């Protein structure tokens, strides 16, 4: 445990918790089959939360000398003194239960040199010179420490390897992505081949599609983007409290399809042992066989809402009051190929672009477009490429209409989440509303 955390808790001079996170992240971006940006960052920040009479204040700094830590404590204390007590808040975490033993760190991934990544990318570029590759390849490590004035102390290291590859051909593009704790699970060459296959599939057969309701086969990156938005508008403690989530009034009720189960699981997926308040991570079912179980919560909002804690605080004092950073959708018994074969008329979607979930949050009505591989399926076969399509769809309705779920699942990273990601299968959904398409004007 670093002395920085201890000094911060001492400076608080009140009930307090603190987190100290140091990261070493290395991101190589490429486009037009060239490395275009290459960065290495070593950063650390301390967040201190002080509780005064049940009210909390938060301050963050990136400077760790005694004077700055004292100033940070003063700011947090001043903020707490001006805040109101949180209704029902029973104080910071005290139980100090043991955390699960999980493997969250891979030494080789933490030490990948920029040159090794550059060579892997160069090989991919050189293998398919008829295509242009774009994307990013990120590796990094972090040390996460947290603790509080009740004696809780946690520390863990984690690593990640994350790559996205777009292959661009003459008449379309393809996409592949992976995110794992170890770089051994992220094979650049294989991702390049997968993206290239999508970019060249049905490249000589282009068709159009009128707006309407269609069966869709959604790949994991498409589902992950929808789940990112559901995380914001439906799963958080704040969205539950403010009434905007469709979970409100539905706890314990079957609202979605019986074959739909979604959990937050940092034990099995992108493992990490505790949340930033020090609670041990556990498997938390958000939706179980279509039944709404619980929003994800920080300690204060669990107390306030009278719900069981779920260990989902990822930034002290964050206004979302809980977020699911290790989303895992249960797999089924199908395959993507079986879904295609069983489809009379439908759309196979690789990925979504610019989804927005703020249209009508109570029904999780969202809109977005497809990109990097949208295909027409007719009579059980992929018959043509389609333009990028706009859709406008209630997710409450969509996840009530799941026809098939694949056994295989893929891990997809998210830009806002350094701790985990989303593990999702391929799904087939009935009656997805297509409302427009991408058209170039003369």
């Amino acid at each position, binding site marked *: 445990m670093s002395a920085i955390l201890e000094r911060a808790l001492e400076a608080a001079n009140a009930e307090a918790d603190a987190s100290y996170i140091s990261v070493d992240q290395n991101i190589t971006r490429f486009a037009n089959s060239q490395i275009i940006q290459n960065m290495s960052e070593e950063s650390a920040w301390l967040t201190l939360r002080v509780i005064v009479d049940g009210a909390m204040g938060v301050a963050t700094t990136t400077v760790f000398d005694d004077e700055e830590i004292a100033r940070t404590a003063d700011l947090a204390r001043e903020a707490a003194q001006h805040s109101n007590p949180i209704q029902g808040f029973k104080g910071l975490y005290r139980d100090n239960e043991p955390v699960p033993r999980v493997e969250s760190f891979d030494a080789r991934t933490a030490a990948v040199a920029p040159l090794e990544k550059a060579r892997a990318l160069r090989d991919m570029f050189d293998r398919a010179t008829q295509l242009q590759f774009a994307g990013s390849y990120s590796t990094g490590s972090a040390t996460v420490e947290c603790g509080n004035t009740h004696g809780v102390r946690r520390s863990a290291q984690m690593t990640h390897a994350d790559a996205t590859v777009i292959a661009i051909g003459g008449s379309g593009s393809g996409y592949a992505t992976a995110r794992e704790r170890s770089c051994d699970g992220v094979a650049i060459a294989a991702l390049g081949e997968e993206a290239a296959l999508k970019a060249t599939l049905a490249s000589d057969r282009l068709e159009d599609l009128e707006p309407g309701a269609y069966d869709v086969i959604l790949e994991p990156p498409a589902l992950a983007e929808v789940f990112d938005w559901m995380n914001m508008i439906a799963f958080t403690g704040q969205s539950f409290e403010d009434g905007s989530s469709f979970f409100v009034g539905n706890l314990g009720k079957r609202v979605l399809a019986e074959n739909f189960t979604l959990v937050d699981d940092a034990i099995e997926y992108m493992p990490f042992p505790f949340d930033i308040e020090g609670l041990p991570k556990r498997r938390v079912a958000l939706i179980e066989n279509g039944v709404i179980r619980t929003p994800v919560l920080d300690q204060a909002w669990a107390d306030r809402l009278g719900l069981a804690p779920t260990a989902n605080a990822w930034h002290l004092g964050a206004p979302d009051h809980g977020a699911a950073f290790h989303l895992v959708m249960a797999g089924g018994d199908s395959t993507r190929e079986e879904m295609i074969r069983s489809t009379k008329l439908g759309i196979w979607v690789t990925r979504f672009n610019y989804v927005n979930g703020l249209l009508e949050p109570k029904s999780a009505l969202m809109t977005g477009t497809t990109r990097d591989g949208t295909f027409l399926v007719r009579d059980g076969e992929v018959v043509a490429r389609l333009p*990028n399509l706009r859709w406008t769809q209630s997710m409450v309705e969509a996840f009530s209409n799941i026809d098939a779920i694949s056994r295989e699942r893929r891990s997809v990273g998210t*830009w806002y989440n350094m701790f985990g990601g989303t593990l999702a299968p391929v799904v087939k959904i009935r009656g997805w509303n297509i409302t427009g398409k991408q*058209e170039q004007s003369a």
Partner: protein
Amino acid sequence: MKPERAQLEDVLRSLAPAARYADIRHTATHQQHVKVRNGEVDHLSSTVDRAIGVRVLVGNGWGFAASSDVSEESLRRTAARALEVAAASNVASTQPVTLSDIEPHVAKWESAYRIDPWSISIGQKIEHLMNATEPMRGDARIHQVSGEISCYRQEKTFASTAGSFLEQTTTQMGGGIEAVAIDGDEFQRRTYPNPFGGDFQAEGWEFIERLDMPRKALEVRDEALALLAAPKAPAGRFDLIVGSAQLALQVHESCGHPTELDRAMGLEISLAGGSFLQPAMLGTFRYGSDLVNIVADATIAGSIGSFAFDDDGVPAQRFHLIENGMFVDYLTGRDTAPFIGRASNGTVRAESAARIPIIRMTNINLEPGDTPLADIIASTKRGIFVETNKSWSIDDLRLNFQFGCEVAYEIENGRLGRMLRNPLYTGNTPDFWRSCDAIGDRASWQVWGLPNCGKGDPMQTMRVAHGAPAARFRNVEMG
């Protein structure tokens, strides 16, 4: 704590033998955020973030390294790391990197404010927000009222091997209120002056005073309640009048982003996407009607998209992107402008010194026309007026868009009629702008600060702004 000029120049000299170009930035970013909700302080936080960043060009490979440790030892270590990264990039970068010419500048710049945001106590800020939100409570259907105030200051130092040494400080404030009304399954949100934290300007507390949120509280509450009972906005084709705040976001998404040259060159395609505006279309492509003039102007006093020099060290500029409806220029930086045979127009910025500078919007403004908004409404036989953004989505080339707004009103025979809820409109960017047949005059023109434009990997949120009047668009698809 801030590195001295001599230190920075010494490190730059050490990089010079290996690097074609190098620059160093230091930033200290101070933020304070106060939010009240339903009579309680919901969130109160202070953040100080310090960072150094070193950018190096070796051969045709860019390298960048950053650290939150701003000590001299860390600076030298970070510079060495940037060199190592640049050398690795050079292995997989065969296309030549050309930088447009630049004059060295030594300058100091600060945005102006009258009342320092940090001179107002937290208690005063809370009191102001309580005064603006408590009057909205009382009706059982008002489920939530909230208000927030944000303070932002970034001090930035830049030194480069081109001989520039620049010190810039911007001070900004933002604020807004909202009321959420729920009746059964109907959920409505109304905000002032804008959602997502309100409006933001490069000013001090005087901006919060000018917003006068307490005066608008009851109007916001009443509109949220009225929306619960309002009929749903219809589907079909209508003449659409878009209010200033919503049109500002339309400009952002459908003109600002597609005129970023890095997007057009495919450099951002993996995450943010590309652009339908390709270099071959410069000067020949009709983007909008003759009335449409869109300028990039980083020199507007008091706007959060303004600065004196970008993060390449290029002076802030004002230039047309769209002139009389024609596409005439991109937003560019030193390493992209040569691709279209031009010099940088100074739009490269990073969120902090810990991030790589990339092309970002400045203040991207739809210039005002000469028609009063009242006359635009009066000359509309059958249409819809929409205002204040609720949702936004646009495809990866910035062609097909869909926007949702907080509120709409029917227009029948030149008069505003019933309030409508949940309006959505959709279209194709050039078709939409070509259908523009009336642009409001300066009375309806306002600069809106947008502090959360996302781009890059890792994601950088940039503070940009858009001036926009109200304007009318013919035969737009709704629903």
